[in-house]
């Protein structure tokens, strides 16, 4: 789900950098409002590394696919809050340099595709604090929605940009069909990511609840 170099017109690259620059600036400002912003840096950095490593695990897929990788941007939002929008470009930078996955000119637009849904997931999961205590079901539901919706949102953004920009001559109806088609293939992934997020959140709730207090 990364847009490679040279794939989209320059205006999209520039817009990507502009938007991600703005969101990064806003995230940095939100972070500075923390009581002790500096103390979260090592945690966020190590979590960035964990997310990176976890996204390299091959998940066996139902046929006809063979395997896929987790995106995990929803979970990054739930665990890191605004730090997720710093962690994601770092992860994308590592991927671009190490595996040529994505690229330098499209780093901005890819950060938007992955990062904005992460922030949405953060806000969704944060609704938990407005719920009455011991609402196991709602914690799970919110975790599922965060994990699944972030992937779907990213996939929508990705498909819209990819299909909308390379083939401007396509008519609107065909374009929409193409986007729906590609979203269909991400539906299974969204279900898996949603379930996975629920499982991780339940695990952390038992073992280290303080990690969920972002």
């Amino acid at each position, binding site marked *: 789900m990364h847009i490679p170099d040279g794939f989209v017109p320059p205006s999209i690259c520039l817009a990507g950098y502009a938007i991600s620059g703005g969101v990064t600036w806003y995230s940095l400002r939100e972070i500075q409002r923390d009581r002790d912003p500096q103390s979260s840096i090592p945690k966020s950095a190590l979590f960035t590394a964990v997310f990176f490593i976890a996204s390299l695990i091959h998940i066996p897929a139902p046929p006809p696919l063979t395997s896929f990788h987790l995106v995990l941007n929803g979970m990054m939002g739930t665990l890191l809050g605004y730090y997720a929008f710093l962690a994601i470009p770092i992860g994308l930078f590592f991927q671009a340099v190490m595996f040529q996955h994505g690229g330098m000119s499209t780093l901005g637009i890819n950060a938007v595709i992955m990062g904005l849904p992460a922030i949405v997931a953060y806000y969704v999961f944060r609704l938990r604090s407005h719920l009455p205590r011991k609402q196991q079901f709602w914690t799970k539901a919110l975790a599922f929605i965060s994990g699944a919706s972030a992937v779907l949102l990213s996939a929508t953004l990705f498909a819209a940009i990819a299909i909308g920009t390379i083939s401007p001559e396509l008519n609107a109806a065909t374009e929409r069909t193409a986007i729906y088609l590609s979203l269909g293939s991400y539906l299974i992934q969204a279900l898996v990511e949603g379930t996975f997020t629920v499982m991780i959140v339940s695990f952390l709730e038992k*073992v280290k609840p303080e990690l969920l207090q972002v």
Partner: protein
Amino acid sequence: MKELTRNNQVSLTNTVSITLNNLGFNYSKERAALTDVNLKIITGEKVGLIGANGAGKTTLFMAICGILTPNYGDVQILNRPIVPGRFNPDIGLVFQNPDDQLFCPTVRDDVAFGAENMGLAPHEVTERVETALSLTGVSHLIDRIPHHLSGGEKCMVAISTVLAMQPQVILYDEPSANLDLKARRRLIRFLQASSETIMISSHDLELILEVCDRVILLNQGRVIADGLPQKIMSDRVLMENNNLEVPHSLTHKH
């Protein structure tokens, strides 16, 4: 035929649990990690494995339990060759850092994990979990969260996760690292009483002296000495040539 061989073996008083035939392994072309290792470990033996860091102790363990594929030679456990990558509940490895072995949200789940993977019925799994935890003396921890345990408790739970598979052979990699003296003493008592064939790799020579009836000294992937712990570990020249020291409990005998 195979059945016959095994029965024959069992009828002998000294059955062999681990056989290494001319084993060799290298991570890269330049550096051999194991060279021509030949060993026979008799059932019920408690064997210590000593040597400086980088001598090949961990590599040897990884080859014995089938995580590494040797470049030449072969490994047999209970006279059946080890197939690298294939699950073999007859052999268990206790990792140096219990955190590497414990990953479930409860001790119960962690200890049950291996038994469940063997395809046992639920009541058998429960039984094995209880037996394993009582053998290591930590039954009271069954509902606790592994990540919250003390170092000594984690160590005993990690051992239980292996015991629950009821393996014939258990390899212990630096089991006393990071333990305080009380937890170490409990570990020593447990190891002395254990009935499996065991191999213990450790820098804690006093532990090996107390537990093992045989010691193997490795250096640069080769077996340098193999014999009685008191004899090998009190040989100052041999020990110092291999970057080791004679343990204190043996020095005053000189």
